[in-house]
């Protein structure tokens, strides 16, 4: 179960090294709370990023934040290392308001492709040399850039309905190559929500895949920018990755805002957070498994219902703890909302009962699923994602760990109580759909280990030291122009948040780094050249949630 892979020791790159490496290309410094920041010219982007990747080992473009100030546009490339995510650097690229053109980073990091499309779509920065400068989240016919200054959201908009032409119409056949264009989604049982995949088929082989997202773009960033730090933002993270991963998402916001405003969290609250978050991870992986079986077998009756059965138990426990089944809103800045439900013994016993039954259930899943010959034929050696490719696309979470990348924020950039507990990071190096499923199933067992240790701690915690929240001012106003990027290990991977404070009680810019967004962008790599059913299996094994992809 443990990794078996040796982690390469990463060389610590000091700020001095970075200064020397970037040299004259740095126009100024713009340090963020989490990382040193360097301001560079818009035409030096590829140059600097290539050097940082090849010379200093920053191989993970974690995020790209675009924003508009009154006097300029700015793209921020948040870089970190897969080998050691605590080493971070921010590259800030300002462009003028009149001509917001910046060089594309796509040749250096493939993941910049989608990020820059999003930055163009929402903020309106043009990336010179971008291979595919289209809108990504909003419809092609949209007017204006909603997160830019002075956007009027009262103006009418037109949306077309053209993709729904009959896919077997003759005009979809290309005269020369006899391929067929096929729409999968946005209303389709296998797309896990409202994803639209434009597929070109040659016979039954997938030639080209273009995921078309944005059918659930609910303006989460705008909503968070309109909310106050203290209470109004916390309900939204629940709705990004809505597959019961609520507490994991809330933790992303809690961690970022607590670091931004320098808030301490009592140790007792950290233990409760850790336990709750791992329960959410189990619920989330159960659904991933259930729907994957649904995709691969079309099996609505056995495994899907088994998965749902186990999720019901977890949801009951979480409801006892938080008061809600799905949208918990349980974390507060500086702790959690309340202590374990009374009677404590009953809650602890109920949770222990669930954990005691879990190994048998996991065995059952292995019998039904992973040991099944049909399943193995469908998933083994399909949807190959090589580790180097995964890094290029910024894949994290079970998808990266299924490709042998030993990367887990819980261990590498510790938060909460994970540091003091005994557990392993699971990796598999099969790089295929099968490995990704295996990683999730083993992570369920690891999560169970963590919860068990947390329960032991909570049971013996002295009664007069059970502080669930620290003192936090009613109104939080972090200093203007403090910027921070922080991430946690969500159910699907590295869930990060960038916040820029502007001196008021609301964030000036709130950017969400969604793991599903990156994982989904790698879909063409997984499925091109394979059969259509393997495309469906690959999509299922990526375990995307459209709420988090589109935000």
């Amino acid at each position, binding site marked *: 179960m443990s990794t078996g892979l040796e982690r390469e020791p990463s060389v610590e790159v000091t700020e001095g090294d970075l200064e020397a490496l970037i040299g004259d290309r740095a126009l100024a410094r713009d340090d963020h709370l989490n990382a040193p920041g360097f301001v560079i010219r818009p035409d030096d982007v590829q140059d600097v990023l290539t050097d940082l990747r090849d010379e200093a080992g920053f191989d993970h473009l974690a995020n790209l934040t675009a924003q508009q100030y009154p006097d300029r546009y700015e793209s921020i490339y948040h870089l970190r290392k897969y080998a050691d995510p605590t080493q971070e650097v921010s590259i800030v690229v300002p462009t003028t308001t009149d001509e917001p053109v910046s060089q594309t980073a796509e040749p250096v990091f493939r993941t910049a492709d989608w990020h820059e499309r999003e930055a163009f779509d929402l903020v309106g920065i043009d990336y010179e040399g971008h291979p595919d400068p289209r809108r990504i989240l*909003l*419809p*092609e*016919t*949209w*007017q204006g850039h*909603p997160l830019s200054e002075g*956007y009027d*959201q*009262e*103006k*009418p*908009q*037109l*949306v*077309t*309905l*053209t993709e*729904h032409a009959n896919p077997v119409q003759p005009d979809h056949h290309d005269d020369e190559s006899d391929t067929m264009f096929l729409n999968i989604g*946005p*209303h*389709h*049982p296998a797309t*896990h*929500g*409202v994803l639209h995949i434009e597929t070109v088929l040659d016979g039954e082989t997938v030639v080209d895949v273009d995921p078309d997202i*944005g*059918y*659930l*773009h*609910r*303006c*989460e960033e*705008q*909503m968070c920018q*309109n909310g106050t730090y203290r209470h109004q933002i916390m*309900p*939204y993270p629940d*709705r990004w990755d*809505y*597959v*019961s991963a609520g507490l994991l998402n809330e933790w992303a916001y809690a961690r970022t805002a607590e670091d931004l405003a320098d808030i301490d969290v009592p140790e007792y609250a950290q233990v409760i957070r850790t336990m709750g978050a791992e329960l959410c991870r189990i619920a989330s992986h159960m*659904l991933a498994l259930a729907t994957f079986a649904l995709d691969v077998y079309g099996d609505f009756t056995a495994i*899907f*219902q088994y998965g*749902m*059965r186990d*999720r*019901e138990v977890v*949801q009951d426990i979480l409801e006892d703890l938080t008061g809600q*089944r*799905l*949208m918990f809103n349980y974390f507060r800045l500086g702790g959690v909302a309340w202590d374990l439900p009374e009677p404590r013994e009953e809650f602890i016993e109920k949770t222990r009962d669930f954990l005691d039954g879990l190994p048998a259930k996991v065995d059952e899943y292995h019998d039904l699923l992973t040991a099944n010959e049909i399943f193995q034929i469908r998933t083994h050696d399909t949807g190959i994602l090589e580790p180097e490719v995964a890094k290029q696309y910024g894949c994290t979470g079970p998808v990266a760990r299924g490709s042998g990348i030993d990367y887990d924020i819980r261990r590498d950039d510790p938060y909460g109580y994970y540091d003091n507990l005994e557990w392993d990071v699971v990796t598999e190096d099969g790089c295929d759909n099968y490995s990704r499923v295996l990683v999730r199933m083993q992570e369920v067992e690891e999560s169970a280990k963590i919860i068990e240790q947390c329960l032991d701690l909570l049971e013996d915690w002295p009664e007069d030291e059970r502080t669930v929240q620290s003192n936090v001012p009613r109104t939080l106003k972090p200093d203007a122009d403090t910027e921070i990027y922080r991430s946690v290990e969500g159910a699907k991977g590295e869930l990060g948040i960038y916040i820029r404070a502007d001196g008021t009680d609301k964030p000036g810019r709130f950017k969400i780094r969604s793991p599903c967004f990156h994982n989904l962008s790698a879909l063409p790599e997984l499925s091109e050249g394979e059969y259509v059913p393997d495309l469906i299996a690959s999509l299922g094994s990526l375990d995307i949630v*459209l*709420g988090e992809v589109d935000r």
Partner: protein
Amino acid sequence: MSSEQPRQQIYDSTAPSTDTRDSRIGEGADDRFNSKLREAFGSTPFILTKFDKFMNWVRGNSMFMLQFGIACCSIEMMHTYAIKHDLDRFGAGVPRASPRQADVMIVPGTIVSKFGPRMKRVYDQMPEPKFVVGMGSCTISGGPFQEGYNVVKGAEEIIPIDIHVPGCPPRPEALVYGIAKLQERIRNGESTPVVVKPYELEEFGDLPKDELVQKLADDIDEEDLVMRYNWADSP
């Protein structure tokens, strides 16, 4: 003739052989096939009712749901279909993947501008009579995302909705209750009043030539279907 031997050819009576059945279940009619309903009818196998009333009763008791997942609420919708809550118990079970086989559409989540025309199309593809359950606050008003630049302020802006189930998300019990209420309405023959819908699919060529239409004239064909969102008129 004894029914122990298979009858190869008919040489005496052509009446059906009933020996086996009689020996298994005894003389007389087989009441395995008689329901409570049959008992209520008494001796006559005929009932007198209005055909409409009968059809409403049938429709209310056998509803096919559309398998239609949009956002957070679809997770609770899946739990409603699955064990423990098991919507099938109420004669409203199996989700159908194709809109052409479905009677009821549960709209489980936020509708955004890009999805609006698609949802309208899926709704149009369902055969009449069709019913819609709006699940969650987003389908009522846009819910927590109401102020978003991209969010349709309620599914009713686009399609008529029979039952609203409030909650964010509603518990499975609430959805079951909502569907039970819908069945009650269908059985009573109540239909949704047709609302005037501000957002309709129209051909691009039919739109009034205002500033926006002129700007897009080069990108969109005259025959393309489009949906025009007048955000300022939304609630």
